[in-house]
């Protein structure tokens, strides 16, 4: 069973590049252009990992991330945060993201990090177990 990846990003061209990269890596993808849509997709699509842009309309990436972390049934959903701001990445981690990347990113690094998050996931101590 291939992993499911949700791409939450409002810039069309970036979405197109991420979609191509994830599919090429053999993942199933879905996209969301704003924060609300992103949360809806998490509920419907049950992604293993969310590539989450920090600056989304309606609900920011931080808010989306915090909501995902607040729901016990989504606790295994990995979150990779993308930020266009230099230097302010800790806040993503504090909000509960598993990893982050600054824009512009190297595509190989992105793919590597996504794979790493998905592979390492079972090794992480589960909250509440």
């Amino acid at each position: 069973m291939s992993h499911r990846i949700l791409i939450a990003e409002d810039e069309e061209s970036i979405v197109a590049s991420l979609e191509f990269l994830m599919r090429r890596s053999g993942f199933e993808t879905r996209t969301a252009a704003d924060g609300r849509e992103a949360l809806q997709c998490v509920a419907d699509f049950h992604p293993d990992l969310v590539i989450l842009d920090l600056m989304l309309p309606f609900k920011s990436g931080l808010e989306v991330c915090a909501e995902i972390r607040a729901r016990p049934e989504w606790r295994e959903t990995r979150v990779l945060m993308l930020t266009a701001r230099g230097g302010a990445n800790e806040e993503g981690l504090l909000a509960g993201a598993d990893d982050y990347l600054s824009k512009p990113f190297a595509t190989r690094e992105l793919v590597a990090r996504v794979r790493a998050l998905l592979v390492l996931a079972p090794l992480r101590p589960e909250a509440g177990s």
Partner: protein
Amino acid sequence: MLEGWVIVGASFAYIGLLFAIAFYADRRADAGRSVIANPWIYSLSLAVYATAWTFYGSVGRAASDGVGFLPIYIGPTLMIVLWWLVVRKMIRIAKLNRTTSLADFVAARYGRSALIGGLVTVIAVIGILPYISLQLKAISTSFQILMEYPQIVMPAKAGALSVMQDTAFYVALFLAMFTIAFGTRQLDAAERHEGMVAAIAFESIVKLVAFLAVGVFVTFVMYDGPGDIFERAARRPDLAALMTPFGGAAGGYASWVWLTVLSMMAIMFLPRQFQVAVIENVDERHVKRAMWVFPLYMLAINLFVLPIAIGGLLHFPDNVDADTFVLTLPMARGNEALALLVFIGGLSAATGMVIVETIALSTMVCNDLVMPLVLRLRKYRLAERDLSTLLLDIRRAAIVAILMMGYFYYLLAGEAYALVSIGLISFSAVAQFGPVMIGGLYWKGATRAGALTGLTAGFLVWTYTLLLPAFAKSGWLGFGIEFLERGPFGIELLRPTQLFGLTGLDQITHAMIWSFIANVGLYIGVSVLGRQSAAEHAQATLFVDVYKQTGERGLQWRGTASASSLQTLLGRFQGPARAAELFSAYARERGLKSVEELEGDAELVRYAELQLAGTIGAASARAMVATVAQEDPLGIDEVMTILDEASQVIAYSHRLEDQQRELEAATSELKAANDRLKELDRMKDDFISTVTHELRTPLTSIRAFSEILHDNPDLDAAERQRFLGLVIKESERLTRLINQVLDLAKIESGLALWNTGELDLREIVVDAVNATSPLFRSKGVAIETAMPALVPAVVADRDRLTQVLLNLLSNAVKFCPAGTGRVQVRLAADIGGVLVEVRDNGPGISPEHQAMIFEKFRQVGDTLTQKPSGTGLGLSICRRIIGHFGGRLWVESAPGRGSVFSFVLPCPTAS
């Protein structure tokens, strides 16, 4: 029986008693146990205000004017309320300056001017003469009436007898001797006349007791109490009118007001009142007691005035002068003892006044009139001789002269007026001192020239409106009554009693109004326009700021003199023994063994001058000291420095306060500026972080697709083409963004280049519409333009304005619905400029977003789910361009109703 010898004997016995009291008081004073260091004695001595005028004249005036006699006593009662402020200040100044008289006081205030001192003396002497003549008249009249007992016969008119047969002449002579014996036993006037004050206080008791005795006798023995008297009076219309104040017999309001003012001045500035209240004062705190005892005395001595007056009018037919009622009523009832007591009471009232007044006046004449003249004579100035006996002789001569002049005034004018009217003429003269005295105490700016002109003018008006008419009525000086009725040389406007056509007032009110206008007007006017000399300013400060001083006078002499020459000088006026005594006392105080060790420094010069001032007055003392002391000229600047130190400190602290306020204001301005800078700094950081963010987005796509293309050579052609297309598109976006950021930065920093010139906005609109027409066509949006045939030219940069219009048009087309969209461009002349409107039928902008869209990087899309294309800098740049040319860019819109972006540019020709 009241034989002549009984009356004369009683009089001498009474005078003898006065001497005994004075002698006792002087002895006690020498022994250091002063009897007058007592607030009661001080208060009673002030009652020297009540003279024969009060004793006999009040009843006389009440008989003709009813309660109209009262203002003369209301004035002092009102004035004494202010004594703690005014008189206490005068006492303090007089003590510091060892002032000898009123003239000395005024002269010292106005730069120790001998001229002022002389002028005040002349005014006082001439002004007081009628008053002294009044006392002579009272004594001689009462004596003559009493001599006729048991008949009641009015005495012969003054001047009807030869001088040698005239009682008044002998009275004057007797009083002169009496006063000489009383007042010139010691020389230094600043050393108080303790014996005199004690005698005066005693006289105040005697006259009060005598007057109350008559009052009780008339009210309760001759009639059945005050109720009975007033009831009888009420039954006679002519008497009933006496009891109504204001109007009728008592005179109008103006008369009441002026008489009150007049007596307010008199209680302080009559030479004798100044003498007892200020010069003879031993303790400032006595003023407090006097403030209620004196009004009480005034009340007591006025209590029976109306009953006696009415009783006299009821009892006598018209042939008895009302001024004599006090005496004639007891006589009519055959009460010899009471009649004698009344005579003694009258005598005490008159002698008290004459003694103090002539002593005060003789001191003034000596110190402020004669001495300055004598000291000008080289003979006296340089001769090594004792002048102390000369001083005493001058004073004795002055006393005799003043009383003789008083007598001649009585001969000339005494019969023309009643007692009260004579007294009021004197009061009016004395009132002329009011402005220079009060002003001198509180107004530093008052100058010597102002005081001189004010006093002179007031005195001349007084002479013309009161003194000359008094002479004219007596037929003296060659003026007849015609002079009063027609004016001098027939000029009616100059009639002395109706000057400049001022009629309807009594003579005193009339004179007071004109003399005060002249006096106060010139005093203030000349002072304000003129300048003070250094010496004047020094004295003015010493007087006005007397409470601020530590008890020592300011630095007066800067020069030095030899101690021996100063001692010799003092010795010439006070006797060598006294001078030696004073100098050795001074040496002891300084801890020196003998007078020889004294140095003639400024302090010693000051001490000698002060001692001398107590003998010959401030002005003369200064002149004398100047003959032996070398004074370095004291520049105005130095005097200012010394004397205005206090005011400089005050001014300095005001300046400090001002500076502190300024500093606080500057601090808050700095704080505001700092806040503004922080805000700008934060905005700059935000801007940079936003720009960075905006740059990263296209860069992310470009990098991602480049890597994808690089890492995946197996991509099919279509996909490769699509990705390359995205790379190009994002590169363009990046370029546009960089350009606009640079553009905005240039405009904001003022580095942008503007090619300014006169433009026809129609051309720009047409160009912009043409340039954007492919955009409109591709989206199916209609564009319409409406322009007048002629619009005024504007001054702007063509390319920049085109940029604005292109921006507005591309925004409009961006938000218009495809197919049904419609954009209208309208151009119109507006007030002072040209208006350009771009209207679309897009979704509109909500009010909260309308302000936001002009901010940098703020974009508002049709829905928030989709970011509009563009950098978010366009409108920001447009607004700055329009602003640069003095115009304004704004939006009007509502959701669902489209938007109108408008701008106005001013045009030079339209304004």
